[in-house]
């Protein structure tokens, strides 16, 4: 567990510390160089940010409200355009959004008028025949443990189940990068722990690059390979978490790290 300076991209191809996973599938690396974003000529929200995320890494981004972490996430997804600087995804220009990068929002955002399986199929876009889409949606629902809810209306599900449907929708197209924008913020504590375990398991199985924006430092420490603390649109702290998985809640190393990150966040109060 050592603080490292974000590696600058002298060599994007050499992803030396990308974790190797047994079943790692397709994953994207992300490289930001001097990235700046200002809205309508105002103060920049992201200030000349340099960051390299190797393919398959699980990165957590923490910071106070309004520090620019959600904007950073949207920039990486291609949902916002940078004011200046470069964004490379897998070594290529990443400014245009594409189907290989998916986001899971804080709210489930399910279509109330579509059955659970049809909501999941939204994640497939126009790809595949009707039967194929149904089959893929069913598989994705099985992965989040909701096989028996395929034909239900979203209104009949609990908050945690809806968020699991949203996760299935994000994962059904097998994205190479999954952005999670405080996806568990609205859930109760126990459901949140279940969901964290589910996200970690699916990430380990599919091997995509995961970028989690969260307020919850404990969540970041439990899930991430690496934690970035963002302050005023810049990286204030970049820490690798090498505690082996599965991680035990209440592990003293993790608790110490959580304390350190909280100190960093609170020091600026």
């Amino acid at each position, binding site marked *: 567990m050592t603080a490292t300076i974000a590696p600058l991209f002298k060599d994007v191809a050499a992803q030396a510390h990308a974790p190797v996973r047994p079943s790692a599938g397709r994953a994207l690396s992300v490289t930001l160089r001097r990235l700046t974003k200002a809205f309508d000529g105002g103060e920049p929200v992201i200030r000349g940010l340099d960051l390299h995320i190797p393919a398959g890494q699980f990165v957590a981004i923490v910071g106070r409200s309004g520090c620019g972490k959600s904007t950073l996430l949207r920039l990486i*997804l291609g*949902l916002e355009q940078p004011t200046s600087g470069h964004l490379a995804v897998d070594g290529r220009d990443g400014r245009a*959004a594409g*189907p290989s990068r*998916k*986001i899971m*929002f804080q*709210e489930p*955002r399910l*279509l*109330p*008028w*579509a059955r659970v399986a049809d909501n999941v199929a*939204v*994640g497939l*876009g*126009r790809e595949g025949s009707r039967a194929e889409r149904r089959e893929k949606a069913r598989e994705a629902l099985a992965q989040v443990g909701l096989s028996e809810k395929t034909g239900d*209306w*979203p*209104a*009949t599900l609990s908050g945690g189940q809806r968020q699991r449907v949203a996760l299935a*929708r994000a994962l059904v197209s097998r994205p190479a990068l999954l952005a999670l924008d405080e996806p568990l913020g609205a859930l109760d504590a126990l459901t949140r722990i279940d969901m964290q375990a589910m996200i970690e398991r699916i990430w380990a199985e599919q091997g995509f690059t995961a970028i989690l924006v969260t307020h919850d430092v404990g969540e970041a420490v439990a899930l991430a390979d690496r934690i970035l603390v963002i302050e005023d649109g810049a990286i204030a702290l970049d820490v690798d978490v090498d505690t082996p998985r599965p991680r035990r809640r209440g592990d003293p190393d993790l608790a110490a790290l959580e304390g350190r990150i909280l100190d960093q966040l609170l020091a600026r109060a």
Partner: protein
Amino acid sequence: MADSALPALTRIAPARAARAPTPRVPTWLDPSRALPWLLPAGIILGWQAAASTGLVSTRFMPAPLDVAHAGWQAAQTGELWVNLWVSFLRAASGFLIGGGIGLAFGLANGLSRLSEKLTDTTLQMVRNVPHLSLIPLVILWFGIDEGAKLFLVALGVFFPIYANTLHGIRSVDPQLIEMGRVYGMNRRELFWRVVLPGALPSIFVGLRYGLGIMWLTLIVAETIAANSGLGYMAMQAREFMLVDVVVLAILIYAALGKLADSLTRLLERRCLSWNPAYRNA
């Protein structure tokens, strides 16, 4: 644990026993279904009693049996069916024209800022003119032809459907639209899969309002300027002091209004079954 389980079991047992014989009772005999009709039936019985005992003069308020008799006679001569059909055609075509235009403008103005800027102010100004106040003008334009009735009904139906469609599209959750965009939907898919279904509950509200206005407009128009239709039938009857036919016409209007409302409800329940508010309404 044992204490709390025991009463639960005893509570389940009688419930099962009570549920078993229910399938034998036909649904129309189910007391909860008959309940809404209890009050109307009571009123008719009381009315008949008041008329039979001479409490109410039948010159002003005919007894229900007289009304039924008038209805039977009008049905026999075929006069009732002709007038009913004429009125129905006017109502339906006026509704389709006005509702169609209202829906089209509502969709256009809800989806396009330019279209809204161009037309909304004008439409809002026209809306503030009570459409029935145009009757003298409409008679000058169309005489007492079909055109007059169609024009008035269409105009009356237009606004509730326009306003509610526009409102429905405006109030579609922007987070859902963003989700659709992020998940790669193009404009067409966004409209059919997110915007239109989201606006549908509000469009149905407009539909029901529109149906109410449709009957109201038609009755007024037929009463003032027509030579066929239910309103005309009622006005003719008034001239000959046939109070029973007048009341018959009023009751038919009530029944038609209720029928239109029930049809809309049925449609709502089919189209909006995803919405818990409509599922068992």
